[in-house]
């Protein structure tokens, strides 16, 4: 199926696929609508339209479309640098040569079809993939200039610097209070007043304090799903991490709980840089400042969320965010 669409000339295929430079990008308001109409007419007919996607499918190296704003981030503006990162599960490569700069104090969203490696990439940042047998990596990830992989890296310490919230709320089987201060307790903090102050701060930060302040001693499992997820956020921020990783944090929640979490993400992003995986295009558009579109373990396009959703550089990105593909 693939071979008839592909350019058969190997030398050309191995070349990077050129993309339009970001500078010549038409502004979203003017040019995009007309172009979109034109493209939609020919969308299904013109198979060769997804040049990068086709290149990826055939296993060719491609050059992702990275918008200038992100390509030109200074080191001070970058909190995490994912640099030519690759990851294998045994023999299967799940991440291929991904470069992503996570901007400090912003929300960066990872989008892409199921199985494209979003979670894998996210879990590489705090090395949670270490638990899985046969995982191998290449390239590098740095957080605030410190290597994530490599000899001599203290993984426990790394994970303490990076908070993570999972798809399904996973409160521990203990009280609300004990959940929030878990991170401090494993550091050996015993002072009651310190723990209490920290838990109040974290719960306020996660917009949960008012709801639970009178029942901190109750089991966390008795909270609603949305409350549990905010508790997990409180638990993740209690020790002021350098960065927060969120893996589809709302996919198990109802719309109202989702809304609250989305508002919360806005608030906490200023203090804790957020890298979020989401399946939901509207959510990515609502909460994030930057969006990276991934496909089959590769980065396809990475740019400011507004541009990605209104006038992306690539037709495949446009079709994906419009829900026409993927």
């Amino acid at each position, binding site marked *: 199926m693939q071979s008839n669409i592909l350019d058969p000339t190997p030398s050309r295929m191995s070349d990077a696929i050129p993309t339009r430079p970001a500078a010549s990008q038409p502004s979203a308001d003017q040019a995009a609508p007309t172009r979109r109409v034109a493209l939609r007419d020919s969308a299904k007919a013109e198979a060769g339209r997804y040049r990068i996607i086709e290149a990826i499918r055939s296993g060719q190296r491609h050059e992702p479309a990275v918008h200038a704003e992100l390509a030109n981030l200074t080191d001070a503006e970058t909190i995490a640098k994912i640099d030519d990162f690759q990851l294998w599960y045994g023999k299967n490569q799940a991440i291929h040569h991904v470069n992503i700069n996570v901007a400090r104090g912003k929300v960066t969203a990872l989008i892409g079809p199921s199985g494209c490696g979003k979670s894998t990439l996210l879990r590489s940042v*705090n090395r*949670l993939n270490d*638990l899985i*047998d046969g995982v191998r990596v290449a390239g590098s990830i740095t957080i605030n200039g410190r290597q994530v992989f490599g000899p001599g890296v203290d993984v*426990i*310490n790394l*994970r*303490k610097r*990076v*908070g*993570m919230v*999972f*798809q*399904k709320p*996973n409160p*521990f*089987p*203990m009280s609300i209070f004990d959940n929030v201060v*878990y*991170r401090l307790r*494993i*550091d050996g903090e015993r002072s009651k007043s310190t723990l209490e102050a920290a838990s109040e701060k974290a719960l306020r930060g996660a917009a949960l304090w008012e709801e639970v302040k009178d029942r901190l001693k109750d089991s966390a499992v008795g909270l609603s799903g949305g409350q549990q997820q905010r508790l*997990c956020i409180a*638990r*993740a921020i209690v020790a002021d991490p350098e960065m927060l990783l969120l893996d589809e944090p709302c996919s198990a929640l109802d719309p109202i709980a989702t809304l609250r979490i989305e508002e919360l993400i806005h608030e906490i992003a200023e203090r804790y840089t957020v890298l979020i995986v989401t399946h939901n295009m509207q959510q990515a558009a609502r909460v994030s400042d930057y969006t990276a579109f991934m496909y089959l373990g590769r980065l396809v396009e990475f740019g400011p969320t507004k541009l990605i959703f209104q006038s992306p550089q690539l037709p495949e990105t446009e079709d994906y965010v419009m829900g026409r593909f993927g």
Partner: protein
Amino acid sequence: MLLLVLLASVVVVLFKGALPAIEHFGAKFLVTSEWRVNEVERPLRDAVGKIQFDADGEQIIETIPQAFGALPTMYGTAVSSSLALLFAVPLALGSALFLVRLAPKFKLAAPIGFLIEFLASIPSIAYGVWGLFVLAPFLQSHIGPFVRDLLLDVPGLRWMFFETVTIAGQTSEREIPMVGRSMLCAGLVLAIMILPIITSVSRDVLRAVPRTQVEGSLALGATWWQSSWMMLKYARSGLFGAVMLGLARAAGETMAVAMVIGNANAINPSPFSPGQTMASLLANEFNDPGEKLHRPSLMYVALILLVMSLTFNIVARWLVVGKKQ
């Protein structure tokens, strides 16, 4: 259904058999320590031990009736089972953690799992023989003296090695002999016997702990041990059930215990002294019961044992199975 009928009939048989003893001793059976199988006839003595004579100068013979009480065997069951749990539970939980978290990495989960199933299927008499011929002598000659030398000076532990006895009005303290066959020996043999079942049930329970729980704690920077502790905590009711299953097996074990516990129907506080459990008592005495109330009393003991292990089992099943759903 059939099982229920079976169970009911067991209860009925035991109850009917025990009825004379139940009527005779009532609940006092549970709190008395005597176990006199035969009536004893002996010359009557007064308070200072002088033999009494009647007017004709004949010795007065008194008849001491049979007496039965389950307290020493209940005590023995409780202590030997507790000792067994004390030794087996930490080891079993450690092995279960190893099997769930580490063994898969080294492709060891299946072979070790097989080994455990195999150990669980060894007949208990084999453990008994091993306990009798290997462990008991070793306890007597090495472990016992070693532990005594180690703990003798620890305040508050003297009762383990010395007992006070009153002979003819004289109270004195004497050293408890290391006999090998003892409560401790039974506890160790039982620990080895119940290790496989506790391990394999705990392993299944720990396997059912959601990944997200473990990852949640690891993502917060928990060490291997800290996240393992989290797993144990999450699975605590199931693990408790696993322990209860082991306890039920320990409390109900007959032959292996009868071979190594020393079969002394008395309450001796020291773990180095011999004792008796309900099950070992039955194993020892049931094939040749004495007259009158002996047999009903044994039935009574069996009934207590049955009710007890039934309770353990029900609680255990409820904890293990009930929580999974």
